[in-house]
């Protein structure tokens, strides 16, 4: 079911884009990531809006007062919070729905890139079962060379005048993940949320950086592209939010 609904359409679309772009898998990953992010844009916007509304609620006097008033009665606090959400027309689940729908898409995108690269016999055999009849088998194996990278191998840039190789993409992934986390998680007045945001800003770049360093550079390219688009989305959303209402 996972293969039929998520993986097969993604792999075959990726290969279709690859064929349109002169069999350049690097560009195929970039365009495909952009398309998927475009398709899921309404969900991302909904999720970001929800986060912003929540931030506004948390910053309101009514919210702060109830936190103080019912700090020893969690049950009552919860009831009052729900009442407040209802009054301002905020659905606490609205942000989660977007995330829940996006999560399988992100996992599918990741898997589609890995499986299409098919670096081992088992992966290639499995790929043969995921192709649609109209997808040309002549596209396989994909050309994994992109710029200085072999997209099926971890990326390192070797320069003649340096005694060591530079993991350029890893560095870019760490920086862009940090920026994206900063831009898409607005400052919260709540101390616990602040702590979570701080940890997120620290762990996410390290985690994705580790993946980018140790796994295939095709994935690192996907992380980097996705982060850049996320930063762009975050920037636009922030500008819209900061724009004075006319």
């Amino acid at each position, binding site marked *: 079911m996972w293969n039929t609904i998520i993986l097969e359409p993604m792999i075959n679309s990726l290969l279709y884009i690859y064929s349109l772009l002169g069999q350049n898998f690097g560009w195929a990953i970039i365009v495909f990531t952009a398309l998927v992010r475009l398709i899921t844009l309404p969900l991302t916007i909904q999720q970001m809006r929800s986060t912003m509304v929540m931030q506004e609620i948390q910053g309101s006097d009514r919210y702060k007062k109830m936190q103080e008033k019912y700090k020893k009665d969690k049950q009552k606090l919860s009831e009052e919070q729900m009442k407040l959400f209802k009054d301002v027309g905020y659905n606490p689940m609205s942000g989660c729905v977007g995330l829940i729908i996006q999560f399988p898409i992100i996992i599918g995108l990741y898997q589609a890139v890995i499986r299409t690269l098919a670096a081992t016999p088992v992966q290639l055999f499995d790929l043969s079962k995921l192709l649609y009849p109209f997808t040309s088998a002549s596209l396989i194996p994909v050309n994994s060379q992109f710029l200085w990278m072999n997209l099926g191998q971890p990326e390192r840039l070797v320069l003649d005048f340096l005694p060591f190789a530079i993991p350029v993409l890893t560095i870019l992934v760490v920086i862009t993940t940090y920026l994206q986390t900063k831009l898409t998680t607005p400052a919260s007045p709540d101390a616990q949320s602040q702590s979570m945001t701080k940890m997120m800003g620290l*762990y996410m770049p390290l985690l994705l950086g580790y993946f980018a360093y140790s796994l295939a550079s095709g994935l690192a390219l996907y992380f980097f592209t996705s982060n850049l688009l996320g930063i762009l989305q975050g920037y636009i959303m922030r500008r819209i939010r900061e724009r004075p209402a006319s």
Partner: protein
Amino acid sequence: MSKATFPLKKLFLPMILGLSALLLVGCSGRSIMAASSWPGLTISEDIAYLAYNQYVRAVDLSSGRDVWSYPPEADDKITFYAPPAVGPDGIVVIGGYNNEVLALMPNNSFVNVLWSFDEATDRIIGGPVIIDDMVLVPSADGRLYALDLETGKPVWDKPFEAQHSLWSSPKIQDDRIYLTSLDHHIYALDLETGREIWQKNLSSTISDSPSLTEDLVFAGTFEGILFALDNSHGEIVWQFKADGAIWGSPVIFDGVAFFADVSGTAYALDIASGKELWGEELPGSSAASPTILDDRVFFISETGEVTAFLLENGDPVWPSSANMEGRLLADSIPTDIGLLVPAMDSECVVFSVDPSTGAARCIIEPK
């Protein structure tokens, strides 16, 4: 109370991220870095030479015990999947996913490394082939290396170079090497020099070795076409379109080509005309070459079954096929103790299937 729960709160986010990471990597089936493949099996004089994961093992088929294994201690960075080549005087040539080729000389339970070759720049996936005093090693770097069996030194001026990876063993007939590549080509090379005699583009990836008769070369492609080519110039004599991608080499016997495809269909074709003699459905996808024993042809399904048909008319032999745990993707090998079937993702690495009844038992367990 709050002090006691604080560390848990602190750990919550890293735990969620860690779980997400596991999900990301886990859902992909296998990491792109993992050197995962099916076991490489070679049989010589009642000894099974098995390359799987971190070891190459020699297993006595009568007792099921290891005679020797290499390396003495597992190294996480080195894995072996290419079927070992066994030469005269017991020399065993193995290739690893660390790009290295080794010649081993077993001495009882000890193994001496005679030589090593480390000029390949990608993994050794296809099995090396020993011919006289030379060993041919296909590499995923696209090169076919010809090495002196005694010293490991290159024999040709330069290795033959295809446009993409070589994942299958070369086949040798007379003074020629026939070689397939992921670059969609089949090549005929001069055995002495490694120079190309002819090449043919078959428009799609060829994963397994070619099959040979006196005057024809056969190769199945990812596009699901079985080609028969004239071996003198590489001209296409006929082609047959199967339902799915063809992974395993066809087996030629008595004027008939037997093969299976990824859609799970077994075929028998007349090699003179390319006409289908019979086609039968298998329980699952097939990546392995079929095996012929007596009057039967055995097909391996990925899902764990071996199915036997009569050579003559394709009638099924067993009421139901044997069923084994794990993924069966490697070729089976006929021996005195039954049909040996390697398995991956299983608690048994090699099963033995009784060719007359289809009953299966485990004869080699993972190390």
